[in-house]
């Protein structure tokens, strides 16, 4: 809920600026050329291990310069190892360029996992703990009025385990297509409560939900560092807000050595409904 309130607060400010801009001012936008320095490419590691049956994958890509096309070159020939705190360790196989896949390891809630990547002569290590799963009780739908009209919103209803800090990430799947919007929450203001979490998206490209759609929600229980990664990733996607953060920065990765990306060890539950 912490994040949700931030969102409405941020929205409030964005909205304030929007109306100031739209009423007082003849604002205008134009595309400009800025010379952004070309930098040496940096590696992006995106790894996941869950409590569901394997295989799990780790993908390695590289940054490109701002004026290039969005083709992010895969990093091939790396050594990728996942190990856990019970002494198990496995080397992943590169199945397609830049995609590394497990063959035997089975994720278990409560274990601590380490992902070690050696690529281009540098070693990057990320550590994540897999929290226990939390079941989704129900999915519900409400219509919410926004400044842009009426929207159907999915609510995830679940019971937060009491006495521990929980962090959640949700993935919304509409008719089989996972949406790219990031939904996260913690239990800061609602430890042990029944939580009704709206999956309101800030992205412009979100598919609108209509009657007859099949909507699934995946609930990942994640650790604090992974939560902070997604929280700081969300901070970056300000959706074209004009009063930007004065110190935008790369999201807080749980990898060392300057690698971008994250290693997520999460327990997973899900629920599906058909929109009436």
């Amino acid at each position: 809920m912490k994040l949700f309130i931030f969102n409405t607060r941020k929205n409030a400010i964005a909205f304030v600026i929007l109306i100031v801009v739209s009423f007082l001012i003849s604002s205008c936008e134009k595309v400009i050329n800025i010379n952004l320095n070309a930098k040496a490419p940096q590696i992006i590691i995106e790894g996941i291990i869950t409590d569901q049956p394997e295989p799990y994958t780790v993908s390695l890509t590289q940054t490109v310069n701002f004026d290039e096309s969005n083709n992010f070159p895969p990093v091939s020939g790396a050594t990728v190892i996942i190990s856990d705190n019970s002494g198990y360790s496995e080397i992943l196989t590169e199945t397609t360029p830049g995609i590394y896949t497990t063959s035997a390891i089975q994720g278990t809630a409560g274990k601590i996992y380490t992902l070690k990547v050696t690529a281009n002569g540098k070693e990057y290590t990320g550590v994540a703990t897999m929290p226990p799963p939390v079941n989704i009780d129900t999915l519900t739908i409400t219509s919410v009025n926004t400044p842009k009209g009426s929207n159907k919103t999915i609510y995830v209803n679940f019971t937060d385990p009491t006495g521990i800090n929980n962090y959640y990430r949700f993935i919304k799947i509409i008719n089989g297509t996972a949406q790219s919007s990031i939904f996260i929450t913690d239990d800061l203001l609602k430890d042990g409560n029944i939580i009704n979490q709206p999956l309101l998206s800030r992205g412009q490209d979100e598919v609108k939900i209509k009657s007859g759609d099949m909507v699934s929600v995946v609930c990942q229980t994640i650790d604090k560092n992974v939560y902070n990664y997604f929280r700081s990733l969300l901070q970056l996607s300000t959706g074209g807000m004009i009063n930007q953060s004065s110190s935008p920065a790369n999201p807080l990765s749980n990898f060392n050595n300057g690698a971008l990306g994250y290693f997520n060890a999460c327990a997973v539950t899900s629920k599906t409904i058909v929109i009436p």
Partner: protein
Amino acid sequence: MKKIRLFLIAIFCILSISSSAQIKYTISGYVKDIKTGEELIGATVFVKDSKTIGTSTNAYGFFSLTIPEGNYIIIAQYIGYEVKSTQFSLKQNTKYNFILTENVTQLDEVVINAEKKDDNITKNLMGIEKINMQEIKNIPVFFGEKDILKTIQLMPGVKSAGEGNSGFYIRGGNADQNLILLDEATVYNASHLLGFFSVFNADAIKDVTLYKGGQPAEFGGRLSSVLDIRTKDGSDKKFGIEGGIGLISSRLKIEGPIVNDKGSFTINARRSYADLFLKFAKDSAMKQRKLYFYDFNAKLNYRINDNNRVFLSGYFGKDVLGFGTQMGVDWGNITGTFRWNHLFSEKIFSNTSIIFSNYDYNINTILAGTDGEIISRIQDYNFKQDFQYFLSTKHKFKFGFNSIYHKIIPGAITTKSDSSISELNLKHKQALDNAIYLSHEYNPSGIIGFIYGIRLTSFSTLGPGDFYSYNSLGETIDTTSYNNGEFVKTYFTLEPRFAANFILNEKNSVKVSYGRNTQNLHLLSNSTSGNPTDLWIPSSSNVKPEISDQVSMGYFRNFKNNVYEFSTEVYYKHLQNQIDYKDGAELRFNENAESQLLFGTGRAYGIEFFLKKKSGRFTGWIGYTYAKTEKKIGGINNGEYYPAKQDRTHDISIVGIYEFSKKWTISATWVYYTGNAITFPSGKYEVAGQLVNYYTERNGYRMPDYHRLDLGVTWQKKKTEKFESSWNFSLYNAYGRENAYSITFQEDPNDPAKTQAVQTTLFRWVPSISYNFKF
């Protein structure tokens, strides 16, 4: 307290011994406007045919001049007023008020009295900008609102915080490092509508003084500057109504005597009504939107007798923004000041103030089924005692103390009982802020003058509550609980201040100054142009007082019988305990917001040039500043010096006002500045299905250069004793320059495989018109 009293008695004793050698008498009194009876601040009072014997009126219009027995012609003068001279045969202490008449013959080149003293050369302090309230009337305005903060931004060393923004940066300091005082009360947020207007209604204001460096010892609490704003008392002669009607807002002022020549009142009100136009919008969503601000200034004063006078003044203002019943945001300041002026003798002026100030914001939202309210507030209870001792023409002392209790509610979230959200009330913060000061102005001869002083401050964070300490990762490593009123952490700082003036001749002077300032309230603001919801935090075990040491040197010159004045100042500032934010810092509703901060040092230096034509049909000025502001903070840019966000290399402003006739005045301003330092991405990548910018360093890029021309025309339609009216037309951004307000990076809509930089421009050609009247 007892110690202070003993100390003061000791000083008096020493000084009275040293001054009892000659027979001297004191002329004291006030300098006032003939029509309204308003006291004039900073008017000069001096002895004719003498270069050195003189003084100026204090913030209450009082002067005291102690000179040997004899016959004198004493002259009082003030900008925009006729010079007044009076003959005295001084055989005893004398009380006399100089009553000045407003200068109406400004059209012709004013014949400059050769004896006329010039503040530019003779004032010992440097780094001061005075705003002439007469001048403000004619400078082009934005949406018809004269604005002192916008005018101040046209001075060298003062930089606008952005397009249309009333925030300002002084000599490399951040916007929160300015102490903004309205009748001595701190104004924590001086912006309406996110900075497009300032909270100061120009009709209510008598005097504006900005101290950019070498602040006198009576001021403290902020690193960069003091903006001292004093409101009008209101006419004690006759009732008057004054007002203005503009496109965006209107204002009205009522003033008049309570008891003739003894007391008066003034009430100013202002409200914007852009939202009323929304009712005509076709879009029903638009109709539901709310957007307005309003403010009131009110002041009462009463002269009990010759030696006692009381003032009561207050400000109340609010911004309200909303969308139907879905969401509402409002914020505003409240200040209140009670003052008692007391004359212990002709030479000792005392002012006692009790001051209250409050800033808060509220957010109401029922979005997503949650009916919640968010409140945040900062409050000050302030007691201030100031003495001025006009010992002789050579010695003047100021001393006093100040005690402020700060109370901060960082954020409280309340919800309906059936909500699934628990309430949140971030720990309230209390602090006690004390200061004592003493300063001495010493003018041994006509060619050299000093002001030096010292200010001792103590700042204590008070319980109750748990206080945390953090490791370098921002994790809590220790928690200590304190009871109500218990001292958690106290910082003492000694702030020496020094200024010297070397008058080379009537036309040239060289000044130097040094000053240390500390700041114990810090604004956490991590957005490019600031938000009303930015949070103030007090110094604590984790956040140390910010300290600045500034040295400056200046050369001042007047030309052509003081028609032109020129000055240049260089400064260097060293800053300690400066604050910046960690990557991905979460400052809002975070009990551990202090763990999101990084600390380091900073430096700022620059040179300012200022050339002004002060009188004649054509008046105006050119200001130029070259400046650099850098920070060095472990954890940012590998601990190297990097430009602060307010760093700007070049800053030029040109102001011209030409009086065609008594009816028509035209004016123009042109500003140019280098873009601010900003963080832009140096690459991009994809993660979690999102296209993400890749950042490599903080503030490594620059916004595009900014420039703008504004034009204004004032048509004085009617001016009689009974009724005055004028029209003001202005055009903001006359040549329609597309200045960048922000630059965002996004997917190219025509080619999703590409990204583009998009610049948003807020204002192009904003015309406005306003009608002003007075009767």
